[in-house]
């Protein structure tokens, strides 16, 4: 069935995920080239492009990291292609170097960078506010709040970028990427084929003599863009009164609902900002004139608040501005961390209007009432049944114990932080395990028996672990690097990486072999194991422990979820606990050291759920009371 995202009828309304709406917006703008590095909450954008590639008239690639993705996209737009580059917020840090120069060289074919921010850290290591990148690099910035806007602003941002020949930032947050709402489709544009690269060294080669005028051109462009922001259909004024509210991003949705909840619609003046940078100064001047109080609603940093305060000062307006900044007569009402909500916006609104605070009655699960139920058991995410990472962690911990320092990285295997595996002691960012581990090892080299083990997944290794490994070799660091190769990028939804042989769309014809790559670097101490072979894995780790310098263990076994889908792997056996269990007294070792979700206790006896067991048979190698039997093929 053809996807409505590619071939939907203009005028039709579909329920779309915010990320699907971004895809449709790009299609309507005539998108020609997409590069990305996946990461929640952005992943459904590239994954949808990948899935629909056979239907679409565009070039798509999963790049090895965000810097490469933006450079690939930067090259494509230099050759005249209308380009979209997608990543999560922390990915923009990786891509920051090309980004800041791309703003100088420009984007002849048009280029939009999607930055999917994550206030509240739903699936990220920080909650940085990438609107600041728009200011740092000098990029116009659009921020949608609904699915319809996600589509419309993507199309508008691409069109604007192509018209200006300058990159544009489309900034979303998790709630926008992962909301679903009705989206009415428009007619897609068909663009002429890219014109190819047009030589112009003074425009495209930022040697100092050329970079200076490039910077001036960028500053001039940003000034002219204020008019565009002033007249943008995404910036609208509504309501009336002497109290005003400026809102941007998803805060606009919270504001609309808060006004409705409090029956205040039309009674305050509202400025909805969708085109947020450069600041539409004339529009804001018109909006602020006559206001006594202005409430600024934006998640994370007081970016708009700072700029609006500066504007009010420049205009000599004496209105009271309330946002996040503490002190003076305007105590901060709003937090600089986490997400906003209707309740939070409602409280701020009532406070600004001098209305009494409203308490919202909520049902209490009363999890502290032990008479009824006691504290509720948590349900943390866990490594799946049959996950090969569990097997590697188990073996490494058996050999190295608690005293070793475990440097972790970003992927499913970060879940190894949980007991009983406890295989994550620190983590900085994608690809940091080897280099940060090297630093810990070097700085603790005077301590006796201070082993450092770095864990890194295959996709993360390709992303930015290779450079750390080269550095470790060059600077003669002393650590064990465990490359956990599960043959896919599991955490973000089984996207391909350079090392895979299968993708969700078929075979990968050009596989980069990690073993050959490591050998090519000249690493002498190398062992490759299937971690599900417990004895062989233990032996390899013990041998590597006896050596010094950079040592690499490649633990290769496909993610069982991916193997089922992509390799069509059939499961023939499941594990079960034999009657002999418990004959020598209560033991429970399997529960305490494995934390496999297929295990449970059935009336005091350990049992294995055959529906959950993946048949990895690691447990059989740990306990003689666990045995294999033929399983139902699933």
């Amino acid at each position: 069935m053809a996807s409505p995202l590619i071939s939907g009828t203009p005028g039709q309304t579909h329920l779309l995920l915010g990320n699907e709406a971004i895809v449709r917006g790009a299609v309507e703008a005539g998108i020609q080239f997409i590069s990305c590095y996946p990461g929640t909450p952005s992943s459904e954008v590239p994954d949808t492009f990948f899935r629909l590639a056979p239907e679409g008239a565009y070039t798509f690639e999963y790049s090895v990291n965000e810097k490469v993705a933006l450079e690939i996209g930067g090259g494509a737009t230099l050759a005249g292609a209308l380009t979209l580059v997608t990543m999560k917020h922390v990915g923009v840090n990786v891509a920051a170097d090309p980004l800041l120069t791309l703003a100088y060289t420009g984007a002849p074919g048009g280029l939009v960078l999607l930055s999917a921010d994550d206030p509240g850290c739903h699936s990220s290591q920080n909650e940085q506010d990438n609107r600041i990148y728009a200011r740092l690099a000098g990029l116009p910035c659009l921020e949608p709040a609904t699915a319809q806007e996600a589509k419309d602003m993507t199309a508008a941002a691409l069109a604007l970028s192509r018209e200006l020949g300058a990159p544009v930032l489309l900034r979303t947050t998790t709630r926008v990427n992962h909301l679903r709402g009705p989206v009415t489709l428009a007619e897609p544009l068909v663009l002429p084929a890219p014109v190819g690269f047009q030589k112009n060294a003074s425009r495209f080669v930022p040697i100092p003599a050329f970079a200076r005028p490039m910077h001036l051109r960028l500053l001039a462009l940003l000034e002219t863009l204020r008019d565009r922001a002033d007249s943008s259909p995404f910036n609208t004024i509504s309501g009336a009164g002497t109290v005003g509210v400026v809102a941007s991003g998803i805060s606009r949705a919270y504001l609309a609902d808060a006004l409705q909840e409090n029956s205040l619609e039309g009674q305050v003046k509202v400025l909805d900002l969708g085109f947020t940078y450069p600041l539409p100064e004339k529009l804001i001047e018109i909006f602020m004139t006559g206001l006594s109080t202005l409430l600024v609603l934006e998640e994370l940093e007081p970016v708009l608040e700072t700029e609006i305060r500066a504007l009010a000062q420049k205009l000599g307006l004496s209105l009271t501005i309330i946002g996040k900044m503490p002190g003076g007569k305007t105590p901060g009402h709003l937090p600089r961390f986490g997400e906003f909500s209707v309740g939070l916006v409602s409280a701020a609104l009532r406070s600004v209007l001098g209305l009494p605070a409203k308490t919202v009655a909520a049902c209490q699960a009363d999890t502290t009432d032990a008479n009824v139920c006691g504290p509720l058991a948590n349900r943390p995410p866990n490594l799946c049944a049959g996950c090969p990472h569990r097997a590697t962690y188990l073996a490494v911990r058996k050999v190295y114990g608690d005293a070793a320092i475990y440097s972790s990285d970003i992927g499913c295997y970060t879940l190894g932080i949980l007991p009983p595996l406890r295989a994550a002691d620190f983590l900085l960012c994608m690809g940091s395990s080897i280099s940060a581990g090297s630093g810990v090892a070097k700085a603790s080299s005077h301590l006796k028996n201070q082993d450092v083990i770095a864990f890194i997944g295959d996709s993360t290794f390709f992303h930015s672990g290779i450079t750390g490994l080269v550095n470790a070799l060059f600077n003669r660091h002393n650590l064990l690097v465990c490359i956990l190769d599960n043959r896919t990028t599991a955490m973000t939804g089984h996207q391909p990486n350079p090392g895979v042989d299968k993708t969700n769309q078929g075979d990968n014809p050009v596989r980069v072999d990690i073993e050959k790559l490591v050998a090519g670097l000249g690493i002498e101490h190398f062992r490759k194991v299937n971690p599900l072979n417990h004895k062989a894995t233990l032996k390899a780790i013990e041998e590597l422990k006896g050596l010094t310098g950079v040592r690499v263990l490649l633990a290769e076994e496909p993610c069982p979820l991916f193997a089922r889908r992509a390799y069509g792997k059939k499961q023939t056996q499941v594990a079960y606990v034999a009657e002999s269990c418990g004959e020598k007294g209560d033991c429970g070792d399997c529960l305490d050291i494995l934390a496999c979700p297929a295990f449970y206790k059935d009336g005091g006896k350990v049992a294995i759920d055959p529906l959950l067991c993946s048949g990895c048979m690691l447990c059989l190698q740990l306990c003689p009371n666990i045995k294999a039997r033929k399983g139902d093929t699933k």
Partner: protein
Amino acid sequence: MSALPQTRLRIFMTGVGGQGTLTATTLLARTALAAGLPVTSGEIHGMAQRGGVVESTLLIGCKSPKIGPGEADILLGFEPLETLRALSYLKPGGLVLSSTEYLPPLSVACGREASPDIEAIKAKVAACAGQARFLPCRSLGLQAGAVQSGNIALLGALCAMGALPFGLDVLADTVRATMKPTVAEVNIKAMELGAAYPA
């Protein structure tokens, strides 16, 4: 769409990763759209498929995709422990529909932590809900032909109660319009089993 009465309705859904909570949410949102209602739904992904809690929302007549404590008119719990955990999102006097069948967290399955029994959960729910229905969703799903269709049984019960501005027929139409015929029939059966399950 705007000609219809703007009744606001907020539904909070909760379950366990892999259970199909998001599929049920999307189905219900598509149904609401098919009924001509201004619908927004929200979900938080990320680590969902690793057996963690999955929460999602469906709002009619609202712009926000998020539901705060005490704001949900309806709480749908696809797993009873998660129903209890999410109870603080319910508006006092609201409606609760929950499965009675557990998917115990690992710590409970391994006997390290206890879990409240279903009677304790029912009592807690009764203390703040205006109305509550409990169904053995997993069993109804298996009876219909697929364990995941148990979620649709809960949606069937919800539609049959008249708690939504559309009925079972619109839900059934959406199931047929969006799923493969064989899968659709299993889900229609689950929906009917849920709708007919005695209160």
